[in-house]
C-alpha cells in the first residue's frame, strides 16, 4: 500500500519535472528539472525492486550526464531563451495528439504485447542477476553496443578537434 502511494507520488513528480523542463526559459532551470525527472525515475525503479538499476540511474544520469550538461551551460554562460508565441495549431492539435498517442502506446503495451504487468517490488534487481544477463545471455548485443558508443565518442572527438593546418599562423589576423 505504502509502495503504491510512493510510486504514484514519484510518478507525479516525474511528470511535473518533465513539464517544468519545457516551461522554464532558463537553461539551468531546465537542466535541473531533468535531474528531478531522472531522480524520480530512479525511485520508481527502486520501488519496482530493481535496486541496482536505480542506483546506476542516479550515478550515470543524475551524477554524470546531467553534471556535464550543467557544466556546459555554465561554461557557455547561456542566457535566457526568448519566448515565442508558438503557433495556435500546435497548441490545439499537438497537446491532444500527444495525449492520444501516449494512451495508444500504453494501451498497445498492456493489451497487445507478450510482456505482462509487473507487481511492485518483484523485479529481479540483484547485481548478480543483471551481470549474468549482460555478460552471458546478452553478451553479443552488449559488446555491439559498446562498439557503437566507442564510434560515437570518436566521432565527437573528430568533430570537436580542429585540424592543425587550418588555424591561422600567429601574428596574422584572419
Amino acid at each position, binding site marked *: 500500500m505504502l509502495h503504491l502511494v510512493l510510486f504514484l507520488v514519484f510518478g507525479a513528480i516525474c511528470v511535473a519535472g518533465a513539464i517544468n523542463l519545457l516551461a522554464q526559459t532558463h537553461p*539551468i532551470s531546465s537542466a535541473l528539472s531533468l535531474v528531478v525527472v531522472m*531522480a524520480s525515475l530512479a525511485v520508481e525503479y527502486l520501488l519496482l525492486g530493481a535496486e541496482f538499476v536505480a542506483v546506476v540511474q542516479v550515478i550515470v544520469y543524475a551524477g554524470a550526464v546531467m553534471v556535464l550538461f550543467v557544466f556546459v551551460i*555554465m561554461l557557455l554562460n547561456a542566457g535566457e531563451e526568448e519566448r515565442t508565441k508558438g503557433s495556435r495549431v500546435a497548441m490545439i492539435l499537438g497537446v491532444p495528439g500527444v495525449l492520444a498517442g501516449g494512451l495508444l502506446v500504453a494501451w498497445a503495451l498492456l493489451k497487445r504485447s507478450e510482456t505482462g504487468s509487473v507487481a511492485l517490488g518483484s523485479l529481479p534487481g540483484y547485481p548478480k542477476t543483471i551481470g549474468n544477463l549482460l555478460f552471458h545471455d546478452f553478451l553479443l548485443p552488449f559488446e555491439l553496443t559498446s562498439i557503437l558508443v566507442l564510434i560515437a565518442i570518436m566521432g565527437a572527438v573528430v568533430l570537436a578537434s580542429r585540424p592543425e593546418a587550418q588555424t591561422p599562423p600567429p601574428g596574422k589576423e584572419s
Partner: protein
Amino acid sequence: MLSLPVFLIASLIKTVLVLVILLTAVAYTVWLERKVVGHMQNRWGPTRVGPFGLLQPLADGAKFLLKEDLTPPHVYKPLFIAAPMIAVVCALSSIAVVPFGTSLPIFGYNIPMQITDVNTGLLVILGITSVGVYGVALAGWSSNSKYSLLGGLRASAQMVSYEICLGLSLVGVLIVSGSFSLSEIVKAQGGHFWGFLPKWNILYGGQFVAFFIYLMAAYAETNRIPFDLPEAETELVAGYHTEYSAMKFAMFFMAEYANMITVACLATLLFLGGWHGPVFGPALLQALLPTFWFVAKVFVFLFIYIWVRGTLPRFRYDQLMAFGWKFLFPLAIANLVVTALIVAYRA
C-alpha cells in the same frame, strides 16, 4: 529480524546518534587540522578557548550563527540558497549505509551498528556523492561572480574526472570480495594469512595500487590540498563560496569535512579491513572493540589527510587534469585487468 516498532525506534535512535557523532566529528576534525598543521609549522594552533583550544569549534559555530547572513544583490536567489543545502544534505546522508561495527546486544535485541544495510551500499555512497557535485557547481554559477564561476567550473570538471578513477579503483575490491554490500565486503576481510598478517584487501587482496589511486582520487573529490584548485585562494579569492557568508558558508565547510570523514570511512571499510582487529575481554567490551578499531583506522586516514595538507604544495590545473587522465586512469584500468586475471586464475 526485528519487529516493526523495535525497528522504527532503533532506526530513529541510530540516525540521531550517528548524525550527532558525525557533526561532532566534523567540528573536531577542523580542530585537529588546525592543531596538527599548526604544530607542523612550528605554531601552537588554537589555544585560547578551553584547554588545548578544545572549545574552539563551539566558539566558531556560535560565531557563524551570529554573523550577518549576507545575500549579494546580483545572485540568482533560489539556487544561491539551495546550493549549500544540496552540498550539506548529500555530505551527511551518505553516512547512512556505513557499518561501524558488528552488532550490539541491547535489551535482548541484536542491533546492527549501521543505520541501514543496503545490498548495493557502495553504489549508494557513490550515487549520493556524485549528486553532491551540484552543490558546488550551482554555488559557483548562481553567485554570478567570476571567481565563483571559475571555482565552480574547476570543481565540477575535477570531480567528474576523478570520480572515474575513484570508481575504477573500487572495482578491484569488488572483484576480490564479490559483493556490493559494505558489511559483506568487511566480513570477507576477517581472519589472517601467513599466521599474523590480517586479510585486509590492501594486503591479502593485493589492492595496494588501488588504495593509492583511491587516496589520490579522494583528495581530488573532496577538493583538498594538493588538489584544492576550486578554492585556490591565491588566484580565486575563495572559489565557489566567495560570495557566501555566515551559516551558508559554514554549510559548505561542514560538507567538505563530512565528505572527508565519509571518504575515510569508505577507505577503512574497503581497504583496511573495517572493524576487524584484536578482540578480547568481557562480552560488552567484545561488542564495542570492533567499533573502536573502526574509529581508530578512520582517525589514521584523517591524520594522513592533514599530514598531506601540511606537506605538499598545490598542483597547477593542467597538471591536475593530466595526472588524472594520463596517469591515474590507465593505472586504474591496469590494476583492474590484473586483479580480474588473478581472481579468474584462483577460481
